[in-house]
């Protein structure tokens, strides 16, 4: 089994999908000849040509708008937005068009497409190369939202997203792109959307994370293990529709939950998760659910490691949540 990083795993999934289905096309800024600014689409231009790996003019609204048109006709576009921070010129096309076509047309038109975009901070990118806007898309009826934390999941989930009949936002944690290597099977690998993964079993507290923050959560879980605390760590993988069964059964077991995400706290996805946990597990809760998140500020450059909900912020939250007594 070859070892791959997340860049290679996404590339592999795209290549296999494009070999299997002529309708799959990749489009975006710099995705062609140069293979993308992160080299995620490297080599695809040479194998599939300029009609299937399209260097578009520089306009996110145009990339998504034309991709929607391709999807309406019956193709399977996989547009790339160079950084999630640049997605807003295409926001209207995503939330009012791609997300609504099936509904508003009574099913006459559908919009199967996967919008890939690198997300998250910790790479010295400042405000415009670091944001995590997932909750804006989760809030939008008609979109699925995926964020893998590792190469194996990235390949399997992207494969499933491309086969999915609905539009999918596929957030790739850019801090993980080349930081993690693992065995990823060659050939077909498909993992179902909507399934979280228990990556570490524990008894005392549930930690919910995704993307790059999963590794911070795991590091904290290991850190507090020395004190005898047993943490269960969930990797959501698909943010929406979220795997409520896995979350609820874990929280019912531990009675305590800490939610970790990079995005700002107010109306971040953690707020929704916290509400769901409260609704579904109220009588099982032994401590107030806690969020460890980015702050409600723009994403800072120099102090980004203080902004991010890293191990140094997660660990005390775990200790306090487990120690809580009413």
């Amino acid at each position, binding site marked *: 089994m070859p070892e791959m990083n997340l860049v290679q795993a996404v590339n592999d999934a795209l290549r296999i999908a494009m070999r299997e289905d002529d309708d799959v096309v990749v489009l975006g800024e710099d995705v062609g000849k140069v293979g993308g600014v992160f080299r995620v689409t490297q080599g695809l231009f040479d194998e599939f040509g300029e009609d299937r790996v399209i260097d578009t003019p520089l306009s996110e609204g145009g990339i998504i708008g034309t991709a929607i*048109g391709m999807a309406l006709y019956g193709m399977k576009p996989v547009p790339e937005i160079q950084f999630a921070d640049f997605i807003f010129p295409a926001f209207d096309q995503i939330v009012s068009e791609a997300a609504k076509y099936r509904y508003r047309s009574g099913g006459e*038109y559908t919009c199967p497409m996967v919008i890939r975009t690198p997300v998250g901070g910790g790479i010295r990118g400042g405000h415009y190369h670091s944001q995590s806007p997932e909750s804006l898309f989760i809030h939008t009826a008609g979109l699925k939202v995926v964020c893998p934390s590792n190469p194996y999941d990235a390949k399997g989930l992207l494969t499933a997203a491309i086969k999915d009949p609905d539009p999918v936002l596929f957030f790739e944690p850019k801090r993980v792109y080349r930081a993690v290597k693992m065995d990823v099977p060659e050939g077909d690998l498909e993992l179902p959307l909507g399934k979280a993964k228990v990556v570490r079993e524990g008894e005392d507290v549930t930690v919910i994370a995704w993307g790059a923050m999963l590794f911070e959560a795991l590091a904290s879980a290991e850190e507090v293990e020395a004190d005898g605390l047993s943490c269960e760590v969930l990797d959501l993988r698909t943010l929406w529709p979220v795997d409520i069964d896995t979350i609820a059964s874990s929280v019912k077991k531990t009675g305590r939950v800490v939610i970790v995400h990079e995005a700002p706290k107010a109306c971040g996805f953690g707020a929704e998760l916290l509400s769901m946990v409260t609704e579904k597990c109220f009588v099982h809760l032994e401590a107030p659910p806690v969020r460890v998140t980015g702050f409600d500020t723009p994403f800072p450059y120099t102090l980004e490691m203080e902004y991010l909900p890293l191990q140094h912020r997660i660990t005390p939250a775990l200790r306090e949540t487990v120690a809580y007594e009413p």
Partner: protein
Amino acid sequence: MQTQEQVVPIRTPESSFDDEVVTVIAKDGSTGPADPKLPVEQVVDFYEAMVRTRTIDVQLERLQRQGRIGFHIGSLGEEACILGSAAAMRPQDWIFPCYREFGALLYRGMPLQTYVDNMYGNADDPVKGRQMPDHYTGRAFRFGSVSSPIGTQMTQAVGFAWAAQKKGTDEVTSVYFGEGATSSAEFHTGMNFAGVMKAPVVFLCRNNRWAISVPSEKQTASKTFADKGVAYGVPAVRVDGNDVLATYKVVRECVERAARGEGPALVEMLTYRVGGHSTSDDPRAYRVQDEVEQWRRTDPVVRLRRHLETLGAWDDAREEELTKGTEAELKACIAAAEAKPKPALGTIFDGVFAERPWHLEEQAAELLNGPRAKDHH
């Protein structure tokens, strides 16, 4: 000595389109050199479609005033540019609408009953009552789906046209929008992408002079809207949009060159929005009646009728038969639509995704077991 101007050649753009407007039907009903010379039955067919569109428009506006439908957005005065361009699309071609083109949808074959069901958002509405009146969809008629925000359909039409070409068809996609939409980002992006991708798409700009209350001269500093094609390398043409034969001729040529692989085109169709923006608008608040009266004198329906009369192909008896027939047909459709039930309660949750996820199942159960469920079947 060189002047500053010679060293730095800043140029004021000159319009290439100022006086160039394609026209066919003259005031006396005779036709000029651009006459597409269609069989007379086809011209009669255009006329009937225009009168039918206007008759329906007038009746629906009345229906809205009576409070029986919530909204109507019509095409009073713009029938020639809408029907002429729609007729120029070949059967295999596609139309991406703005929201003022119900006449084109009916011309393409949507049954009037289906359109009226959509106006009522009843159980037989193809889009299940999910959209306001006049936000129709007609894939079976190679017709897109109406969205309210301005310009969104333009980039989509480009991608759609490109896909059709890459799949090996000769299908051309046309896309309607008003002149106000040329100020939107999507117009610039769509034109630019179309030019670069050489997509077989025809941009149909209905320059009806008004974007709700804002006159066309406030939308742009360009001399004409056709001028905008120059910047994107998209060939452009201006046509008298109140002249159905000129519109047909011009759009047909653009369609044929796109089908041959010669790329996109922009058509500026000069017309006038005689009515309000929609039934929610009263144009007396922002424009003088004189202007409207002046445009009524160029009425596209009157103009085509004069032409048909010179051919001996139309008379008052046929006109009355057509108008009364359309009114009766519409009346029956309205009665049928009003008798139909609302869409079933649970349909709110269908079609958000291909399959209902757990959270929508949960919310559907909440609604279906809720206090209002008994009022529905």
